[in-house]
């Protein structure tokens, strides 16, 4: 007989993975369906990696509530889940009177939302905080931080997995049927039965919502492109530098350091019809350079190592076209469902607060039995590059694979690659290894290590050349062997 899930979550982005993890605190049979081959393929892995303060969201909104709550708890979360995180603070810079008014407005909103420590600072203080920042004055938000979005998503999913959650990748949901008291969730691969469905499908949340019988949501895809700058540029920046929001709110192109020492320039924001096209465009690149240079003085082509883009799934008002708040709801027309629509920025910051609220909604319908074996901690792959010389020696003595550097730009060893290849979620794409180890993220972009990583994947997982995938289903890297 087919097993029946108590809760089936659609989407393994940061929100879906956080929900899975929070539900795993209770005695429930939980599964996660993901259309891609790994977590954080879309919006969750395509953003600035910022832990937001929460000062730009309308007071009383779910975004405001969740971001403030998520920000306050993140030191503990990062420690528990071993997520690279720095509470850097952030400056929102202004140049003219209009900007000053904007900053004062958002300072007041932030204070109403309960964001601690906001202050307006003059140019001298701004230069002291971040000498590379543009701007004549700024609002300083000391609680804003930066985190590794890939690792956070992976960590939530791995912790959920360790606590008994099943993950099914390459399972795009194509239909959902109600069958007596159960849902039959049909994917391109299989059919799953479940008592509850959680929709955390991000860009596809309106589509899944309709499959559940909740109609009327419109998702607008706002694409934002980025440049990634070399770590050589990273030495010049201490914290995210954002421009003062314009009259419609929301941030334009900013400069953000990453926890690993690179700099991100972006994103811009363009409404797009195609929600799967992440291609870089010439027009956006030119805009990023112009706008980014106002924020960060070292936007130079010699630092460019890669471009990427993300698409924010904003919930749009049909009439006005305005972006609306996050939706988190249970609805009578779709019993036993928890519906999340339009979770965009600050989704990374809000993931766990949203997850707890989802669990609470469930518990209002059904009693929950705590899982006594729930283990809240997750340990990541030890980063060899960050160890002391003494520790490096010890590690090599313990495992000689630490003595073999595979990625020279980021100093990632064979031991780390092997550990990543055997990740508990069973992800085996080249991109999956990259997101877990930083191999191939450096300035040579895999020129040295990609061939070696492919060999390790083949050897460790007993795969043929034809089976090696780059990132998506069908992204076969090779057409075969040269000679039999």
């Amino acid at each position, binding site marked *: 007989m087919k097993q029946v899930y108590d809760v089936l979550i659609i989407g393994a982005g940061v929100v879906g993975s956080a929900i899975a993890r929070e539900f795993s605190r209770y005695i429930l049979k939980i599964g996660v369906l993901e259309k891609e081959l790994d977590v954080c393929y879309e919006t969750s892995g395509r953003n600035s990696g910022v832990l937001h303060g929460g000062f730009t969201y309308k007071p009383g909104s779910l975004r405001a509530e969740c971001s403030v709550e998520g920000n306050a708890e993140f030191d503990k979360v990062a420690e528990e889940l071993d997520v690279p995180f720095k509470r850097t603070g952030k400056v929102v810079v202004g140049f003219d009177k209009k900007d000053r008014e904007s900053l004062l407005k958002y300072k007041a909103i932030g204070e109403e939302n309960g964001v601690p420590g906001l202050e307006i600072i003059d140019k001298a203080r701004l230069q002291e905080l971040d000498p590379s920042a543009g701007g004549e004055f700024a609002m300083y938000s000391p609680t804003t931080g930066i985190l590794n979005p890939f690792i956070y998503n992976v960590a939530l999913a791995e912790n959920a997995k360790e606590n008994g959650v099943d993950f099914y990748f390459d399972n795009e949901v194509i239909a959902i049927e109600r069958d007596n008291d159960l849902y039959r969730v049909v994917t391109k691969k299989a059919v799953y039965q479940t008592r509850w469905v959680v929709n955390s499908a991000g860009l596809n949340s309106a589509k899944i919502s309709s499959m559940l019988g909740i109609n009327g949501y419109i998702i607008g895809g706002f694409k934002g492109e980025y440049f990634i700058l070399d770590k050589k540029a990273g030495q010049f920046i201490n914290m995210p530098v954002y421009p003062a929001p314009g009259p419609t709110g929301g941030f334009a192109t900013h400069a953000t350091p990453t926890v690993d020492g690179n700099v991100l320039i972006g994103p811009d924001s363009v409404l797009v019809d195609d929600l799967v096209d992440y291609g870089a465009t010439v027009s956006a690149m030119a805009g990023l350079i112009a706008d980014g240079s106002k924020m960060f003085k070292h936007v130079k082509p010699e630092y460019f190592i890669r471009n990427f883009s993300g698409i924010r799934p904003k919930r749009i008002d049909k009439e006005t076209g305005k972006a609306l708040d996050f939706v988190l709801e249970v609805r009578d027309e779709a019993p036993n469902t928890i519906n999340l629509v339009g979770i965009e920025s600050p989704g990374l910051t809000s993931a766990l607060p949203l997850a707890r609220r989802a669990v609470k909604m469930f518990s209002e319908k059904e009693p929950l039995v705590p899982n006594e074996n729930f283990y809240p901690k997750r340990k990541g792959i030890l980063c060899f590059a960050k160890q002391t010389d003494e520790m490096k020696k010890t590690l090599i003595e313990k495992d000689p694979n630490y003595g073999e550097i595979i990625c020279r730009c980021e100093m990632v060893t064979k031991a780390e690659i092997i550990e990543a290849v055997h990740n508990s979620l069973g992800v085996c794409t080249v991109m999956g290894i990259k997101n877990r180890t930083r191999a191939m993220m450096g300035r040579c972009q895999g020129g040295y290590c990609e061939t070696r990583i492919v060999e390790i994947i083949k050897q460790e997982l007993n795969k043929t050349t034809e089976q090696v995938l780059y990132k998506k289903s069908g*992204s076969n890297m090779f057409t075969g062997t040269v000679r039999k």
Partner: protein
Amino acid sequence: MTIKKDVVIVGGGPAGLAAAISLYKQGVEDIVIIEREKQLGGILRQCIHDGFGLTRFKQTLSGPEYSQKFIDLVKELKIECVTDATVIEITPEKKVVAISKLGLLVYQAKAIVLAMGCRERTRGAISIPGSRPAGIYSAGVAQSYINLYNTMVGQEVVILGSGDIGMIMARRMTLEGAKVKAVFEIQPYPSGLPRNIEQCLNDYNIPLYLSHTVTNIKGHSRLEGVTVAKVDEHLHPISGTERDYACDTLILSVGLIPENELSMGCGIKLDGRTKGPLVDDYYQTNIAGIFAAGNVLQVHDLVDFVSAEAEALAASVVEYIKKCRLTPAAINIIADADIGYTVPQKVSGEKDFQISLRVKRPLKNCEISVIQAGTAIKSIKLQKAIPAEMIKIRLTKSDLISIDDLKVVVK
């Protein structure tokens, strides 16, 4: 435990091997080559095509055959080689730290030879628009997959950039049954050597389009096609000239960059034009006792010249080991607008030397002169000069007439 050495050579490719042999033969025997790969030979290991050694050995060899001649000598002389060890740090005090399966290796050297070679410029560095499917490879990576890993990267190929490795891969993939549709070069002239255009493209009817570039990349999973457009004299794509090419593979051959991450970490000053260290006529960097030669210093056309440069460097290192210092170089070499760069960038005036340079654009019937204090102290006439071919001018100590800076000009 720190291991003391007269000379630590970072890199066991053609430059490192030639430097080691030359040092040893001149009596500096307390040396070690540190190589991150399992074998010596560097990038030549994957260059299975021929054409190496014509200048040096008067015969045409494959890359592995060329390097084997040096490896055999290194073995015969019993020069110490530590393979499978990646240098992670070089200090101005000439400490060298490497990671290997044996642990952390720490060397204290009297002199260091930088022979790390170069790496390929990437898509990100030149910001090619479009999506990021599987099937986009730099030429050297594709070469490595095909020649070292028995792995075919694709069947329908477009190549961007007319660098030598790209053209060599056009031929290599054609020979293995792939269809190479075209090579596109953004500049109005090829960036690779004329002999490769003949032997790798023309002989296989592979078209080369100059003043063209890729303006879009399509496909979400595997590459499905690229859009190519003509460019104007500012290298900007001309609207209306776009053409789509269906392909599953895009090979990038868009330039090589000297690999100087270690040098920078040590405070070695680089030349923004060559991306290699600024050196004098001793091949010495701004840090006394640290020398550079081969592709880490400047990207060469032919390995024969890499070997020769490393041997010239070795003579200086021998002198440095003996005297503990070399004459400071105070005569700068200044290149005019038509010349991309010169190596060295300054000279001591105490010895004979050679200036390597490249012209920035193709020139016909030109004269390149070295001028000091208003006088042309050396001139060479060339029927043609192209950026793809490195030009060398030999000067003797007696050619110099003062201690004024040298200007290199094209007429």
